[in-house]
């Protein structure tokens, strides 16, 4: 039921783990099936996402989309990362079964939450 790309990311997930003193952390729980995903970001002075890591509690599609989104984001600017949609993640994986499309939302939402966290932290720093 899953594409080869999904199975590849599932068996060899990229960027698993955490980043100490991350610039942004995003967590999202899937209201539909109860899964959880967390994404950590590290950004350099030029607003480029230098490092990204994830941890996911969820199905094969959830793990594969987490892994794929970290690859898509790494090396991109913050502005570019904001543009990544769940549809793009699913496309990157050669498609997902219809019943698993919501899992790609998990990855996209976790990324957006991490980016929001990053911007909030920066705003807080500026006012200090």
């Amino acid at each position, binding site marked *: 039921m899953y594409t080869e790309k999904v199975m590849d990311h599932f068996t060899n997930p990229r960027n698993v783990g955490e980043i100490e003193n991350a610039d942004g952390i995003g967590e999202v729980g899937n209201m539909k099936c109860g899964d*959880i995903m967390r994404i950590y970001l590290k950004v350099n002075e030029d607003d480029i996402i230098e490092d990204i890591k994830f941890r996911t509690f969820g199905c094969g599609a959830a793990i594969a989309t987490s892994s794929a989104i970290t690859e898509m984001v790494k090396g991109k600017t913050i502005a570019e990362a904001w543009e990544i949609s769940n549809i793009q993640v699913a496309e990157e994986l050669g498609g997902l079964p219809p019943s698993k499309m919501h899992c790609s939302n998990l990855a996209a939402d976790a990324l957006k939450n991490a980016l929001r966290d990053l911007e909030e932290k920066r705003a807080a720093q500026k006012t200090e």
Partner: protein
Amino acid sequence: MRKVYLDNAATTRMHEEVFAAMKPYLLEHYGNPSSIHSFGRQARKAVEDAREQVAAALGAEPREIVFTSGATEANNLAIRGIARAQKNKGNHLITSAVEHHAVLDTCKALAKEGFTVTVVPVDEYGMVDPAAVEAAITDQTILVSIMLANNEVGTINPIAEIGEICRKHNLIFHSDAVQGIGNIPVNVDNLKVDLLSLSAHKFYGPKGIGALYVRKGTKLDVFNFGGVQERKLRPGTENVPAIVGLGKAIELATSDLEAEAAKLRVLRDKLIKGLLAIEATKLNGHPEKRLPGNVNVSIQYIEGESLLLSLDLKGVAASSGSACTSGSLDPSHVLMAMGLDHQTAHGSLRLTLGRDNTEEDVDYVLEVLPEIVERLRAMSPIYTGNEIKRS
């Protein structure tokens, strides 16, 4: 790669002898049992011989056996058939929270037609309390339907006790015995049932064939019309080869039941012991009143579908009650009825042993599983071990 099939509660591999018994009825003896000529008579004899085999296995009379397309149809026929036939006596049905959907959804459909349904809860092991069934009885109750053994967690219900209560209150009692046949003794008089469903592919027979036992004197309303086959309860030309297969399969499955069950229990207990040795795991279902081949554990901090995919990559076929595997995105209704929290249901793993399984199969699973669990836990944001490692 080694292939280990541990999903025998879903379906089983056909017994060679069952296949051998069926083959002539696919290729040579293809007559219609309703025909008057020699081809027809031969097919009729095969059907009636199989009916005797099924009856003998259950301690029933041949005329009490109705062949159906499986347990789903048998459950529908039993519950809808009684509800409609008895609707002048009352409109209340009793069933349990852990039944197969073939029972639960049939009851739901009847609720839409104006019947009222009481779904009795189960305890933490998934067992139905006979006292709870008795307490649910009203003067409107016409039917009680409680499964013999649960397909997910393997818990065996006190069916004879519930049957006794039904008799005392003059109620018709149906039991879905699908998971019991070939695994535990099933005798319709000992269990005090009026109706009982079974499905051949769960005990090494063919798929798409089953039977409903109907105690003589029990009237069912019919909702399929056509021929006069199966006393009009299930009209349509009989699936002769499958019926022959069912007869042979139930004969084989019940003849050496004790020895096979004893063998399965040894494998089951070894598997359970090995799985519970993994940190943060828990057995689901009753520790003793449990089907001889059923293992169901929850592995905390990981999700069932990713576990199944990982096991499949190692050649191991299993199943899970996780929301992510259900298609509906709801976790197993059985595990939820037993009071498991969402997360524990999420990490549930069912391994069901069958006659082909060996001790090497069990050893293989116990060898590959810890690595899989470790890998998935390392990815999990809720595994406390990750925090421990960090500090």
